[in-house]
């Protein structure tokens, strides 16, 4: 698992060149074997979830029986008696119970000690840096990493990159930014005095041709997308999603996947604020428990809805930083450094805790924070190469001045 499978990397090229004559017939046998394992010839979709506010992974995924955690977090500590053991010395918060099915099916990998190379504890700095994934330069990349990854794909569809929350930076800017749809249910043409959709589209196109601005370009692209998204907007599902905003976003994401619109990247914000300096609650109730429950129940419904398409998706979670090991004076948690990334999907080599187990003893911390031992770009880099089908050179452009090393997360 330490070297990339060249057949996977070049698969898109073969498909693109041979689509007209039937892909399987012209492929070398080795390549055919490489993707006969997949449920369909669909490309793998990357769904990136941004856990805003700073995700307290120490409450979500933690070493069991940790005297260090028990001492540092008298009121936030999840005791062994209620933790869900993962069988390897690690435990999950009880509110994450719906994720144990993913774990047992080996479709969930947990990357501990993950995070950004910078340690500023600033929401604004870290959120922005992580979305851009560009460090160590005086001129930050203006585009987000998903926007750059999208530029590396062949432009097969205007819906190749979609943002289901309108505020994400990750897929913005660049030459091929995401289509931001907000809510699918609102993504409709106007109805005014007998103006047909086609006439309105034609109007926007003519206006855009006569005076081309960034605004008119976006207007025509929007009309084009709204037309294409109609099938996804009208899609019904039998799966019962929980009544949370996060679940609604995932439901929209599932509709995008299942409508076969050529979507390759989906960018969405978790709906909820993890910045719990105060009002954190306890293991049994309160804000943190609700957030974790929303996360797990939403993902479980999403997986059920995707059914066989689960094999075509890789879900990653990122957060600007984790929380400090010691709880604060208000029984909450302050800004820290490393956190844990969740990677889920049918192609995930899961059921494992990856990354270097960071020490939690006071002497092993950096200014009270868990040290980042795995740069989050290692994880995303592997997902982009092994799942999204980007070449190593392309990923080098997505993450400038950084060389991702695969952890063996993707099968």
């Amino acid at each position, binding site marked *: 698992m330490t070297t990339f499978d060249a057949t996977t990397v070049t698969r898109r090229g073969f498909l693109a060149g041979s689509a007209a004559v039937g892909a399987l017939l012209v492929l070398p046998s080795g390549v055919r074997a490489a993707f006969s394992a997949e449920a369909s010839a669909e490309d793998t979709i990357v769904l990136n979830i941004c856990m805003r506010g700073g995700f307290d992974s120490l409450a979500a995924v933690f070493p069991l029986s940790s005297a260090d955690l028990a001492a540092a977090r008298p009121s936030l500590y999840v005791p062994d008696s209620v933790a869900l053991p993962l069988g390897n010395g690690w435990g999950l918060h009880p509110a994450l119970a719906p994720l144990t099915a993913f774990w047992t099916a080996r479709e969930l990998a947990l990357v501990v000690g993950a995070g950004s190379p910078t340690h500023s504890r600033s929401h604004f700095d870290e959120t922005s840096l992580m979305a851009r994934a560009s460090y160590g330069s005086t001129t930050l990349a203006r585009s987000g990493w998903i926007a750059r990854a999208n530029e590396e794909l062949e432009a097969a569809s205007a819906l190749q990159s979609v943002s289901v929350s309108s505020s994400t930076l990750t897929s913005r800017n660049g030459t091929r930014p995401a289509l931001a749809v907000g809510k699918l249910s609102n993504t409709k043409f106007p109805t005014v005095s007998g103006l047909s959709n086609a006439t309105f589209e034609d109007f926007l196109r003519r206006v855009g041709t006569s005076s081309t601005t960034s605004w008119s370009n976006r207007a025509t692209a929007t009309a084009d997308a709204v037309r294409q998204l109609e099938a996804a907007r009208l899609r019904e599902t039998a799966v019962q999603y929980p009544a949370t905003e996060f679940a609604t976003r995932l439901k929209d994401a599932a509709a995008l996947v299942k409508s076969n619109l050529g979507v390759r990247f989906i960018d969405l914000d978790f709906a909820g604020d993890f910045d719990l300096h*105060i009002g954190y609650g306890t293991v049994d109730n309160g804000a943190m428990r609700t957030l974790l429950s929303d996360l797990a129940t939403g993902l479980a419904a999403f997986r059920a809805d995707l059914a066989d398409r689960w094999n075509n998706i890789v879900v990653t979670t990122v957060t600007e930083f984790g929380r400090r090991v010691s709880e604060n004076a208000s029984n909450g948690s302050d800004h820290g450094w490393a956190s844990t990334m969740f990677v889920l999907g049918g192609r995930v080599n899961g059921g494992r805790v990856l990354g270097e187990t960071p020490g939690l003893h006071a002497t092993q911390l950096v200014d009270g924070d868990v040290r980042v031992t795995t740069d989050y770009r290692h994880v995303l880099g592997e997902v982009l190469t092994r799942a999204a089908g980007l070449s190593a050179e392309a990923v080098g452009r997505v993450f400038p001045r950084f060389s991702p090393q695969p952890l063996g997360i993707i099968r």
Partner: protein
Amino acid sequence: MGYAGGPCEYSGFSCRTLSSFSASRCRPFTFATYVDVVAVDQALHLVRRFTYGATAELVAEVRSIGALAWFERQLEPLSIADAECDAILASHPSFGWGQIRDVREVIRVREALASPTLPPESMFQYAKRNVNYVRRMTSKRQVFELMVEFWSDHFNINDSASKGGGLLNAFGLDWELSVIRAGALASFGALLKSVVYHPAMILWLDGEYSKKSEPNENFARELLELYTVTPAGGYTQLDIEQAARLFSGLRGPVTGRPLVERSTFPTMYRVSDQTFIDTRQQHFGTFRVMGWTATAAQPADVVKAIDSLVAYLSSHPSTARTVATKLARRFVGDSPGAALISDLANDYALSGGDIRQVLRRLAAHPEFLGSVGRKTKRPTEDVLSVTRALNLKPEPQRFGLIGRADNLANVNWGFDGLHSRLGHQHSRWPLPDGYPDTEDYWNDSASHVARWFAHQVLLGSSASTQAGVSNAEWSKLLPVGTKFAVADIVDALTALLYHDTLSAQTRQIIIDTVVRSQPVVTTANRDAVCRLVAFLLVSLPEWVQR
């Protein structure tokens, strides 16, 4: 359009840098300096940038008294009678709910009006937002209202956050009145001082939970990072920790539920009716922040030290640049030039942080004058400019501006509902940094779709009968004698919405599109044609230009 020399010539010598500044050679900037540089045709530019939308009446007024004279008057908002706006705000008790100063009174009214279907906190925030929308829509003090929005962003508090068991919602009403509105055109130092001591800010950035043993750093961090010097000022984590120690004891006037008065505690030192220092949680000693230092041995010294730190940060050159850059971005362009920023920062420094001086300089600056059409309306400016141009008044029930959110059958078409769909409700941005102010944030597909929807509602083409322009109103909007011809209707509504003409090509595209949908204009469909013409006019890229 030359910049004739004056006592402080724009392109000249000394105003750019403080080091070479000499008070005798270069007095603070006044309009008299450039009195003849703004031609009459700049009136429309000034009105578009410094109001929530041009109206025929306003454009005529500015052309009549002169752009700069109008602007100067706007900088003295209390000198401007505002009878229409005042009358609307006095017309329904719900507007009063959004303007209650005393937190105890908020709690009392909240309990009296409590409803099982709506969190009572929401009602006050809803009313407060509606008061703002009414003011933006109808107030004659337009520059003032824009500055209220500007500072609401700069010192953003999302008072819908359920902090303090709902107390932040209550404090948020007075915050708006006593901090943002009271200081919108004052000196930055005075504004910042009221920010630091206000219970809403103390609660929002977790000062209420700060302890001597563990000072909460949130307010101290944002004070440096967002409100004043920004990272360009070169502060360190140590500076944040020192400032956090200085603020560790600050508390609001009440706490808990039911309310407990802080004034009843002997350990609470009274700073004002609104602010106390918890002497058990207050750090004493010497504080050092970015070269500033002060020593406090007792609560009265802490107040002096905080005042002194506020004054230090307010007069810091990096703060001057922060304020200059944000004002330039708000009123001139997304990427303001270096010369503009240093000119504004220079005026900030010369005037002791007087915001009006900075605005005077900005409104007459060549970069401002040369920026016509280069700033994009954010959603609130877009929808308000529609209502203002079409003279849509907040009559009873229209736009859901009055009453309680839970009493309205469908608030989606209401003004606050539209702002919600557009992602731009007053005081609802979730983070301390305020709504973004560059086109790239707002120019996404979700935003375009939301604007189509908002325009459709405002122009009366939704199912709702309680919003937008009614059929009867369309007839009144057209000048008497307008022919039943598409081209004439297009010209009439172009004048109404743009106060200007469009290119012949764009005009033709609109006519063609209307004819495809409504080939003939008759008495039966003239209102529908008006609605369609107006919809197409506000769907043009020209419409989003401020």
